[in-house]
């Protein structure tokens, strides 16, 4: 055996062995995409303006405090667009004091005086930072929640490098509504003292207060699934979710699902004080601005004891509340932009149908090649099989998920892979027809056909690369298998096929079965 051929043989066998090693056993090594495995794909958007709004509220409160301290007279503070508010009706001669306050402690804000109205706008940089932070925090919170919920191999990532979109992929989860609610809940939990209520409507509720809401109170609706009616609550919360130390699912004295909690020392003290001062009154438990229950305080609850949240929960609801309370609240609202749920049976169907069409495609192409090119057809088949082995090896190596369009890509690359062989074989036939010797025809066939093979594979690869660049999940899977299939094709059809001819056609050959 010639030395060159021996090395080529070793290389070919090495590549084959490596590829098989990479994807064997396929059940563990080949990752299936969501469309084949079943699961939920969500694209959601963080409403980053929320973060700016919340910050604006906090800043307004801080400003009001300082204005009060310095005895600055003004009529009102009015919120405008996102990150904008105005101070109206500023008293005369107060400009200098206000300017002083703003320059000193409100450096994140641009301000301008127009008569007695002062408009403040959050600086772009500060707003950008807040928005960015809200997305990062939301990502972290959602990840925590999903982890607590218990999903294997979830994918949670930002779409693109920046921006406000988050992609969540949860394989194997069947109940989309539950997961969606779990992710979407803002999960701001507060305990607030009840002034009045529940009342069937706002007017009845406010009647004792002269029809208006007292300045330090607010009207909150009951969560329709749990507590009906309207409540008048203290604006300031006694304790909130931030004061929680532990939460776990438990049952109340009637054995219905509930959530028990304990508070950190500071929160515990405040809770103790509030319960001591308000025995006989109601304290409302408010989740995301809806009252979920309003128990009556029967005795002082000592700081270390903690308590229980009741709210006519089902077991699942109580479990989910524990999850969101543990994972923390979202810094901003969430909006769903895209959702796809694929049931496990559809995925299983797709895998089966994909496999059948792959086998039919391979067998029919192989039959044709043997029928048309006889023994040389076997050569092409060997190249085709090796091509597929390399393809699966590469898929496993890149940890690329196999999707249904990906299977289509593989099937297609079977058809395209033999193209290179066809080009070469047709050329060999032409050269033979011109009266050249067998070995010479083979050599010329391969060298002449190469430029066409290279050019044509490359153009298909170019279009597949752009598909990969702009496509989403399943389409990326298609582009991946097509690209790998075509690259592997350059190796198998040109290099390996040649090697097989070198090995099988004797120097003195007078005929070639082609």
């Amino acid at each position, binding site marked *: 055996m010639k030395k060159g051929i021996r090395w080529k043989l070793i290389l070919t066998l090495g590549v084959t062995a490596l590829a098989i090693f990479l994807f064997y056993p396929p059940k563990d090594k080949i990752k299936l995409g969501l469309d084949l495995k079943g699961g939920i794909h969500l694209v959601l*958007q963080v409403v980053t303006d929320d973060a700016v709004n919340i910050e604006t509220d906090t800043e307004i409160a801080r400003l009001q405090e300082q204005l009060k301290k310095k005895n600055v007279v003004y009529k009102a503070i009015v919120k405008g667009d996102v990150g904008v508010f105005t101070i109206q009706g500023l008293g005369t001669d107060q400009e200098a004091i206000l300017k002083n306050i703003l320059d000193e402690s409100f450096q994140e804000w641009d301000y301008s005086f127009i008569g007695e109205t002062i408009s403040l706008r959050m600086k772009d940089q500060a707003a950008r930072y807040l928005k960015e932070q809200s997305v990062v925090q939301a990502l972290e919170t959602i990840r925590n929640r999903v982890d607590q919920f218990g999903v294997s191999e979830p994918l949670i990532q930002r779409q693109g490098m920046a921006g406000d979109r988050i992609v969540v992929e949860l394989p194997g989860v069947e109940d989309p509504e539950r997961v969606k609610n779990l992710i979407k809940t803002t999960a701001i939990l507060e305990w607030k003292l009840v002034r009045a209520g529940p009342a069937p409507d706002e007017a009845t509720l406010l009647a004792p207060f002269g029809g208006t809401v007292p300045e330090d109170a607010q009207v909150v609706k009951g969560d329709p699934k749990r507590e009906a009616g309207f409540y008048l609550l203290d604006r300031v919360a006694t304790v909130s979710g931030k004061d929680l130390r532990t939460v776990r699912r438990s049952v109340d004295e009637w054995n219905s699902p509930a959530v028990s909690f304990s508070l950190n020392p500071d929160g515990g003290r405040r809770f103790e004080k509030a319960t001591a001062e308000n025995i006989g009154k109601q304290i409302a438990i408010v989740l995301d601005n809806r009252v979920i229950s309003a128990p009556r305080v029967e005795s002082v609850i000592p700081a270390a004891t903690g308590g229980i949240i009741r709210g006519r929960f089902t077991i699942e609801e109580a479990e989910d509340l524990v999850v969101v309370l543990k994972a923390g609240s979202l810094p901003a609202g969430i909006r769903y932009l895209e959702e796809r749920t694929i049931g496990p049976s559809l995925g299983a169907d797709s895998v089966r149908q994909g496999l059948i069409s792959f086998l039919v495609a391979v067998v029919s192409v192989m039959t044709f090649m043997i029928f048309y090119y006889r023994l040389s057809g076997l050569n092409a088949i060997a190249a085709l099989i090796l091509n597929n082995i390399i393809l699966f090896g590469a898929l496993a190596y890149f940890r690329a998920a196999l999707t249904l369009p990906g299977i289509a890509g593989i099937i297609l690359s079977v058809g*395209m892979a033999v193209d290179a062989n066809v080009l070469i074989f047709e050329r060999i036939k032409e050269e033979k027809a011109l009266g050249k010797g067998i070995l010479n025809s083979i050599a010329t066939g391969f060298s002449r056909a190469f430029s066409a093979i290279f050019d044509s594979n490359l*153009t298909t690869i170019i279009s597949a690369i752009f598909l990969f660049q702009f496509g989403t999940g399943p389409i990326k899977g298609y582009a991946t298998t097509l690209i790998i299939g075509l690259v592997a094709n350059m190796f198998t059809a040109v290099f390996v096929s040649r090697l097989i001819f070198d090995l099988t056609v004797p120097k003195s050959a007078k005929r070639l079965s082609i």
Partner: protein
Amino acid sequence: MRLFKTPNIRFMRYKYLALGITALIVLAGLLNVIFGKGIKLGVDFGEGTLIRVIFKTPVSVSDIRSELSAVGLGNSVIQETGKNGREFQIRTMEVIRTREGPELESHEKQANDVIAALRGDDGREEQAAGRLDLNGVERRALAGLLETQFPGQGEGLADRVISQRTSLGIYSDFGELSEAGLGSEASSFLKEKTYLGKLTVISRETVGPQVGKDLRRRATQAIIWSLIGMLIYIAFRFKLANGVSAIFTLTQDVLITLSIYSFTNREINLPIIAGLLTIVGFSINDTIVIFDRIRENQKTLRKMPLEEIMNLSLNQMLGRTFITSGTVFLTVLALFLFGGKVINDFAFIMLVGTIEGIYSTIYLSCPVVLFWQKLFKPRKGGRR
């Protein structure tokens, strides 16, 4: 064995006829898009919700339509996807457009309406009696139920029931439980404690308008950039004339395929864009092989006029053109026949594209090069 012994077909003689046929198909498609049924955008591009359901017993499309009409969703597209009259694909057509706000939620609500309408009163009594829907229950809940009667075995039994449900799609009677390897005790326990819901939703997909717009933009970009990429590559490897002709060819590929597609009831989704790009790549591949041969023949046969060389090259490569397209056609046909509903539109457009690719290779790429040469090269004996 050779497909075409020594063919000598004077392809170039019919170039005007061919261009005429092309124009006719594209025009018909264009008229159809503008005045006729038009091109239907699918769920991927933000239009409605796609729901796939499987029923316990066979139903007909008209049954489904009348149930949906009752809730004002009668204009939904309903297609049967399985062979046994039990699997259907329903696409809501009402597209809710608001400037800003919960657009996706309204799509979702509509999907919920569809499912609720299909379910009707089914299972209401059973649920009130506290029985679970075996065709919808989650693994964990089922395991919990079984655990009450078979301590320590709940998980294992639930696994078997669910995996059998996954392979069947839906349980149509309790007898199928024994095939899952469940003992008669467990089967009769489930028969008592659960019921078989009328249908199972096997998938539902909704893309909100924002993402739909985004995907439309990305699909367009993918097509434009790959066309530019190919133009540059071919112009670099051959001549500008070839690059321009290649672009003409692929534009024709896209237009003709889309024209034919527009006459079917199929929708454009992301896989269709992938299919179009593959057709383009594949057709250009054919074209390049011809250009390659023309270039080679030009070197050896310097005297022969370009038109003759083209004819010769086309004839020389005819066998290859048909064989390659043939093998790809075979594989795509396999996908079309056996690949299932989800990938069927893709397979269809590939079938059309493969056949069309042969035609465009022979009848568009070469004539365009020829016209370009005539246009930009002064003829012999011309005034200059």
